[in-house]
């Protein structure tokens, strides 16, 4: 079935079953591989994207449910790694293996869009759905604070 999605401000018409999780449409049909598969049950956050600005787990989001909405993936977060979260992530050197970091960055960006200066507790609450097996949590906290400062300049 053909459905039309707006992803990173570009319109894509894809032929998939409407219940296909958005994750696989992004990765395998369209080729935006920055969004990662981690668990398939919305328990790790590696597949986090924004739908109309809200962070969602794309592994549990049917493609058809995103029709008419604005989908943003890590590739569309900024034109040139210049989102404050990406800048802070590079400054602190957050990623290790990096696999979960697209999801971490999308969760952090969504947090900062609704909280200008989140506390450690607010960061923990907003980011607890994103597992990092390399254990970069301490640097994530530090980088979110730096990103908040950059965003508020």
């Amino acid at each position, binding site marked *: 079935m053909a459905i039309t999605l707006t992803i990173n401000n570009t319109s894509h018409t894809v032929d998939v079953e409407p219940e296909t999780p958005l994750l696989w449409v992004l990765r395998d049909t369209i080729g935006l591989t920055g969004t990662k598969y981690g668990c398939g049950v919305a328990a790790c956050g590696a597949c986090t994207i924004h739908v109309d600005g809200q962070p969602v787990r794309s592994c549990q989001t049917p493609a058809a449910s995103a029709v008419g909405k604005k989908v943003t993936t890590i590739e569309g977060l900024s034109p040139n790694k210049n989102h404050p979260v990406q800048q802070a992530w590079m400054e602190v050197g957050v990623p290790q*293996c*990096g696999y979960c970091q697209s999801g971490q960055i999308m969760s952090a960006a969504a947090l900062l869009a609704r909280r200008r200066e989140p506390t450690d507790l607010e960061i923990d609450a907003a980011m607890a*759905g994103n597992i990092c097996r390399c254990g970069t949590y301490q640097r994530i906290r530090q980088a979110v604070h730096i990103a908040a400062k950059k965003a508020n300049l």
Partner: protein
Amino acid sequence: MTTMNLSRRRFIQNAAAAGGGLMLGFHVPVSRAANSLARPITAMPEGVEINAWLSIDPSGLVTIRVPHTEMGQGGITSVAMLIAEELDVEWSKIQCVFADANRHIRNNREYKVMSTHGSQLVRLQHPHLMQAGASARERLKEAAARQWGVERSAVEARLGELISGNRKGTYGEFASAAAQIKLDKEPAIKTPGQWRLLGKPMQRIDIPHKVDGSAHYAIDTRIPGMVYAAVKASPVPWGTLKSYNFDAIRNRPGVIAAVELKAVPGKRGQPDLQNAIAVVADSWWRAKTALDLMPVEWDGGESAKASNASYYREGRAALNVKGTPTKDDLKAIEAVQTGKKVVTADYERPFETHARMEPINATVHVQKDRVDVWSPTQDQSAAVLLVADQLKVDPKIVFAHTMYLGGGFGGNGGGGTGVTRQAAEISKQVGRPVKVLWSREEDIAQDKQRPMGLARLSASLGDNGLPTAVVTRGVWFSQDRINQVGPATADYPLFEMPYSFPLRHHDRHNLNTHIPSSTHRAPGANQMGFMQESFIDELAIAGGWNPLDWRIEMTKDKPDWQLVLKTLKEKANFRTDLPRGQGMGVAAVECHGTIAAACATVGVSRRGELSIEKIVIVLDAGHVINPHAATEQAEGSVIWELSHAWLGGLELENGAFANTNFDTYNLMRINQAPVVETYFASSGGKKWGGLGEPAGPPVPPAVANAIWYATGKRVRSTPFVSHDLRWT
């Protein structure tokens, strides 16, 4: 534009142009500042190959071929630093590509070692990597000396320039001449006192690729004509496939084929095929959905009777029986049996899994005269050999394309394990490039696990409260009782304790299981380090000693242990007099040649809720070439071990694992993560220890020891979350 979108034609051109160093996957323009931007590959740099590790182009841009895997440990940066130190070149004039495993195999292991494991990259490979840089530098100097008619010793090489008196040239100008030069004698590499770059904290050069989705992992491989396979192996490892009904799903959208994969009788090693069934489709989601809907019956055989409970029963029984001694001292046994004051304790830990965030996958394209492999492995050369073996082809026609690795942790050795064989086999059978991806459930169920282990430790105490004799027994389970990966499944921390015990006996039992096992970050130490260091606290406290002072006293003759423990004492402010509900604990374990000590600060509420507030780590690896990456590794190792010790534990039921996704196999999350402070107490000299793993093992016992101070409860098994920690 990066690798995987390249047309095949372009891809072959790149492979050829690279002179063997496949310019695939990434291009790293080395950062001067943390936020410098990665440039996409547009063309291979023109350059002259000075040796297998490096080429120099006319502008002086140095391309370093990195033989090792980048899994977040800073491997690319370490290799670049080691070579740049000797070559003496501006950090900003370096770019890195992954070295070609096919060339390595073709040229009789030209890169010496491509495997990345055991925290070995720096500690064991630094001599030949530095040598490659030093050798190139001397050949550049010799080329300039010949042109200028002076002795080589009159030419200085500095930051990409060659200088003699008022004559000056660049590496780029002399690269072609240098490539022709053979040295009579290889130069000696620098000693630590001569380092210019090594030892400085350097931001990792893979970072910019990891903030915008541009880093490519094996799972991101996309090649023209590729199809996808979802796979299920017998849930009870090494079980057999009784039946499956492909007709039930063959008409589903996109479904292409079902492929049965068969274990080879007699081959049950780590990288061998399990009995499995694959569904191939035009997308992975369609393949997986069809596979889940297909009726499949398995026979787990006798192994289906095994469970955590049955293994613990067996292990506890073995603790009562003398095992194979590694240090046999009957006097020690007798002293403990007849001692006035004796301390004895049993400890046990369940199976744990790797669960790297990148689920296990592999892409293979089998063609008549060429095979291409994208495998998430810690050893690309092993992937080449493994695929060649599976297909019975000459390894010289097998090309492995190194991608970033989404976590390794010891679980991705041996060429990426059985999944790479699966992809090779399926590609051969369907005649198309195939990406095999395991679902997370499959990834955990079929992982090569960290084995279950038990230990009993006993000691007799003298009048001064210090032990007079120590007797230990280790028990662990390994597949077919094969100790496949050395210390990975063993109990070496128990018989290599650093403490000066007057009498000592250790013996062990290696019990049988059908569960395949593998190295798991800080193998052996991660498991038995908990047994060792929990017991040491029990022993010290029974003898009336402060546990940290006890450790300092008992390692008096070991200067590096003294350095680490005294640094911990200075940095951590370890106290035993905190109010109820708060506690601090210490522990120290040696792993991969590095001594790691930890001090944990915890809180336990009256209701028994544990919070781990802070972990202080002190490490002696002898030398640290990149304190920045080494600190990250310490922080990561702490979280890694706490995940298992606090929250983890695989549950084996009816021969198969029951908790195979993150909703049931719990890993530490940010709201549970402690603050980690890392210090290096480097003893220098000839000592070179690893830094990717050793910070982990002392952390679980430090936390258990802190829990005792907070609650008076001794936790002798993991996960801690299964214990009742309430106090009044």
